[in-house]
């Protein structure tokens, strides 16, 4: 489906959390990620879009290795991460970077900026001289200049946007190949968001980075990724190139998402938006068949509530998991 060198490959990845109900309770599972497969090429950015409870954050953390997959495979640069040994894991940690949602929380409050940026390098045994060089370079790349002004400061002395730049600097300082950005701008002011996203895009282009950009805000995805994957209740229900997704959303859920987002327009106050009724399902007992069917106005009785839809290729580079398109396999 995609051309170019494959960086990351997920094959039927699942992450379930075990919980026990009651004292002698039954064991139940929260199926946060329930069968996700996709491929990411070198230098490409994917927006992983979903609402809270869709499992997108868990997916991001599992890809990073912060959670151990329950089943399925993660293949990075040809190596199967699920057969981990500690040496492979150390290598993998160098190859990936993490940009988190809360810029202040992501920085240890008692370390200076210089120290924060040094830490990943100290852990990965990079020599002192090179460390200094890399810190300067990283801060310049995220445009926190003059660098000397920032080295001795503590996180609380910086604005939200500046803090997030430090987080990004830290994420790229080991020269990774893949960055996972989990809601990197949702805690920042509107005017700063674009700045930070633009920065990420520039870095991606410059260093040929793969980025998985996790967000609930579809309107920002347009400028910052080649692909959009839409996630619902632990599964990816639609994948397409960005322009295609925004022009031709196919899955009823995707359509609803797009339709619910207001662009600034004075006419909006007279329009009622059509929203699928109900709430996202519990991840412990997801609905049988297609997980969206209880809320879907197009649900086909007897089919959507019984069998899970397969991934259907409706256009080049456009896949949907929906029974409505069963005949359009290209």
């Amino acid at each position, binding site marked *: 489906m995609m051309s170019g060198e494959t960086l990351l490959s997920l094959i039927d990845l699942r992450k379930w959390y075990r919980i026990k109900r009651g004292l002698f309770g039954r064991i139940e599972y929260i199926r946060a990620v329930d069968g996700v497969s996709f491929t990411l090429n070198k230098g490409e950015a994917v927006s992983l879009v979903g609402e809270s409870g869709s499992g997108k954050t868990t997916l991001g953390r599992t890809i990073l290795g912060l959670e151990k997959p329950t089943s399925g495979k993660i293949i990075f640069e040809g190596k199967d991460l699920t057969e981990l040994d500690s040496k492979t894991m150390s290598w993998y940690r160098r190859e990936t970077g993490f940009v988190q949602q809360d810029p202040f929380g992501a920085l240890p409050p008692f370390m200076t900026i210089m120290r924060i940026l040094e830490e990943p390098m100290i852990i990965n045994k990079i020599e002192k001289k090179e460390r200094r060089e890399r810190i300067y370079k990283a801060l310049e790349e995220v445009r926190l200049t003059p660098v000397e002004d920032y080295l001795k400061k503590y996180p609380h002395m910086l604005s939200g946007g500046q803090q997030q730049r430090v987080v990004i600097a830290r994420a790229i300082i080991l020269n990774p190949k893949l960055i996972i950005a989990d809601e990197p701008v949702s805690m920042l002011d509107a005017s700063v968001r674009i700045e930070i996203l633009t920065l990420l895009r520039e870095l991606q282009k410059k260093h040929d980075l793969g980025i998985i950009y996790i967000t609930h805000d579809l309107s920002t995805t*347009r400028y910052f990724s080649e692909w959009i994957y839409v996630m619902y209740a632990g599964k990816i229900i639609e994948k397409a190139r960005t322009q295609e997704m925004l022009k031709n959303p196919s899955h009823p859920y995707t359509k609803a998402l797009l339709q619910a987002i207001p662009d600034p327009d004075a006419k909006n*106050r007279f329009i009622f938006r059509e929203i699928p009724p109900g709430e996202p399902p519990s991840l412990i007992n997801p609905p049988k068949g297609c997980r969206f069917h209880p809320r879907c106005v197009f649900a086909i009785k007897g089919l959507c509530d019984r069998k899970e839809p397969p991934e259907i290729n409706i256009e080049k580079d456009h896949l949907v998991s929906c029974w409505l398109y069963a005949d359009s396999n290209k």
Partner: protein
Amino acid sequence: MSDEFFEVEDLYMYYRTRIGPVKAVDGVSFSINRGETLALIGESGCGKSSLAKSLIRLLPRNVEIFKGHIYLDGEDLMKMSESQFRKNIQWQRISMVAQAALNSLNPVIKVGEQVAEPLIIHKEVDKKTALERAREVFSLVGIPEAFIDRYPFELSGGMRQRTIIAMALIMNPEIIILDEPTSALDVLTQANIMNLLKKIRNESNISFILITHDVGLSSELADKVAVMYAGQIVELGDAENFYSSPLHPYSQKLMASVPTLRRDKTPEYIPGAPLSLINPPKSCRFADRCPFKMEICSKEPPVVSLEKGRFVRCWLHAK
């Protein structure tokens, strides 16, 4: 005196901190008609939450200056004493949905009782009648009446926000202030809540004052738009004019920075950082970040009135 429905005139609210006085509301004036909704747009730190709380007289403990006029149906609310205000206005004619209020519901009290509480306190209605009314309001906001007996943790985020809106509605206010009512909610839930607010607006004559940093969201309800920067309103106008052609450079930059789903445009960002509310300069507060900065901008710009109900605080439009 005023013959508008709701008019704020020269409102100031400063509060004391160790470092100096924070001029959170620094000379704000606007007016709205009955049934009209005003959207107040601004980024974090511009003072919009302080303004919201000032309108309903929820002042911080260390308030230093609070002066100006707030006219409701011609009566100056600022002249009222604390107890008078609380007895007659607060929550009865003006109520508020605070930011992230859905997280401040009391976890050990049933939601029905919490919604009924303003009635019991202000109007001294007995519990049974109050709960009846709560049931009515629940159906108004789209919560099944059975939920009266549920606890907050049993409700989803969207439901809890509706509960908060119900609490604001229960006394039949004339004005409801909404401070970032959907910031903690998902896209679909947000759209649902906005639908609800539109419905309420259609079915009653309530005026909303919607405070948000989300320009797109503001257009869902706004009849009038005010843009706030560094404690002041820099532009006020009606929705049609504002969304199509904003006048103040800050408003223009704000519009330009909104990533749009449908329109093809590259969003720009505003360089620099928002001004601190402590010791703002005597010049135009946006001057340092303004692409149209002129020499005269080192003096505070006047409020230029363009048509009825439209003004800009900018030298570019001064005669």
